[in-house]
């Protein structure tokens, strides 16, 4: 039986270990993608959003679209996404108050910091960047305006009492300004 040079054996061993490592670590992201695909499929999601969990219900988006049919501008006031799961009411109240008083920017959290930094030109009423970015896609070609919008969606945030309500649901209100 012909003998295999030791160098070649070592090289084959290294190649084998490397291949095994590549394949082993490759499986996790593929599994992740497959699980994500299944979540999208189960939820019937075809546009964009966290898998299986659209950020806002379709009825809310449609209400804002119906309000803003004449080429007006819109904005969305929300609690920060990361904090909304802990104490939405309290955080939402705080933001609404500050938005009304024009006190933004504020910096209670990372998620919020990014949105306020991005809108730091002053008097922006827009909320968490995740909601704003997601809704900006859905609402096109209707233009976003975080300073002087014609229509505002208050999502899990109490709308100002004096605002003209166009549509509302259990935890949202669309108002005209």
């Amino acid at each position, binding site marked *: 039986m012909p003998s295999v040079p030791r160098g070649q054996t070592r090289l084959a061993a290294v190649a084998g270990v490397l291949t095994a490592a590549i394949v082993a670590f490759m499986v996790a*992201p593929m599994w992740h993608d497959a699980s994500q695909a299944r979540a999208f499929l189960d939820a019937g999601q075809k546009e964009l959003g966290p898998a299986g969990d659209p950020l806002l219900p379709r009825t809310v988006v449609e209400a804002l679209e119906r309000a803003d049919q004449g080429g007006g501008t819109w904005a969305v006031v929300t609690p920060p996404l990361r904090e909304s799961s802990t104490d939405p009411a309290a955080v939402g109240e705080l933001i609404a108050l500050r938005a009304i008083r024009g006190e933004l920017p504020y910096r209670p959290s990372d998620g919020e*910091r990014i949105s306020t930094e991005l809108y730091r030109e002053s008097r922006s009423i827009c909320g968490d*960047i995740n909601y704003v970015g997601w809704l900006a896609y859905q609402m096109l070609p209707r233009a976003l305006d975080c300073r002087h919008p014609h229509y505002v969606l208050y999502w899990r945030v109490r709308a100002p009492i004096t605002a003209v309500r166009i549509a509302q649901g259990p935890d949202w209100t669309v108002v005209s300004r």
Partner: protein
Amino acid sequence: MSFLAAVVTTALPVIAGWSATRGWWLGRVLVAALLGFCAMGIGGLLGAVLGNDLFLVGAGLGLVALATLGRLRAVNLERPGRPGRAVVGLLVAVGAVLLLLSVFRAIPTGDAWAIWSLKARAIYESGGIGGPVFTSRAYVFSHQDYPCLLPTIQAIAFKVQGTASLTWPTQWQVAWLWASASVGLVLALPEDAFAQLAGAALLLCPEVLNTSVTGMADAPSALLLLCGAAWLLSPRWQVKWPAFLLLASAALTKNEGTVEALIVVTAALVLRSSKPPRHLWMATVATLAAAAFWAVYDGIRGVSNDEINAHTLASVTFSTVTTRTGQIFSAMAEHMADPRLWGIVVPLIIACLVWRRATWSLTAAGLAALAVLFCRYLLSPYQLAWDMRYSIDRVLMAPLGLLLLGSVLYPMGTRVAASSDEQQRERHPAVGSA
């Protein structure tokens, strides 16, 4: 119609690129797809700048130009040896799975929908670049200064299907790009098992696979850059014009891609002991032209970078530098050591740098790209921990890829340093021609 959108935007580039390639059929299909993607993207982007739905015309003209001009100096793709075929087979299999999954996937991540898909839909709705999404301060979160090659290609799919309410064709496009760029990159590597496996380790590492199908531009930009750099400097590629196309496309895909493409061509030009050959100058001109085109267009629209600008530069103090330096190094090291992100690639880079001779220009380019990233985080106007948590993993792709390429682009035992091009020309007299 969405099926038509996916097929049209991936099959037409293959048809156009087919005449620009010769040789091994599987390599031809995937390299043709890669070159077609770039030609369609650049043509479409030029059309999108003009507005009036001219991005479709521009994309078509880009493909026609590739089919016509590519024929004049076609790329000959040799059938790789057994290790090369095994790695290509693995990449094609993974690519097929990604394509299959893409049919059931919407755009999954925040940055993808807030930056790239938003612009794609805006181009689709308004017929070009120039509406409020690209100029109004309200949309500043979408990084209005970023180049729009990827959104333009997504917008073409929206136009073909007639709606932006289905996004799986865009997932299909990026999965197809991953497969074609991966095979293009591996075919540029030398015929030794270690180099081929190192290439596969980079392309199949968890972070690359995850990021490639999110709809963000980081992976497309990095893959185009790495292919362009490999094509420019690899002794296996004797026709160099595809490198110009790839580097220009990388520069038009993301801001990081612009800087990194400029770094690659500068390092290739400067780190030599002899007069640079003509193809390096041509690559530099192509990359500079792409970067200058977009910078001028940003200026015309009146948008600037929201992260690095006069305001953020003015706010940097000595204390910012000292407190952030440790944080940045530690976050980078943490991500590089994590096997779920870059933990396979980084030990390989170290091993390659120790045991193989490096192509110093690429190694230097990788280090320079890391230094640029470091400075970008130093100047970031956002809370550093937040900023790094959501971006550091994916932006490491190009610098780490360049470092790995730097040490596997030449066969084991080749005396490679600043004079590599001369040796290469001795062995392959045609190298150096565009």
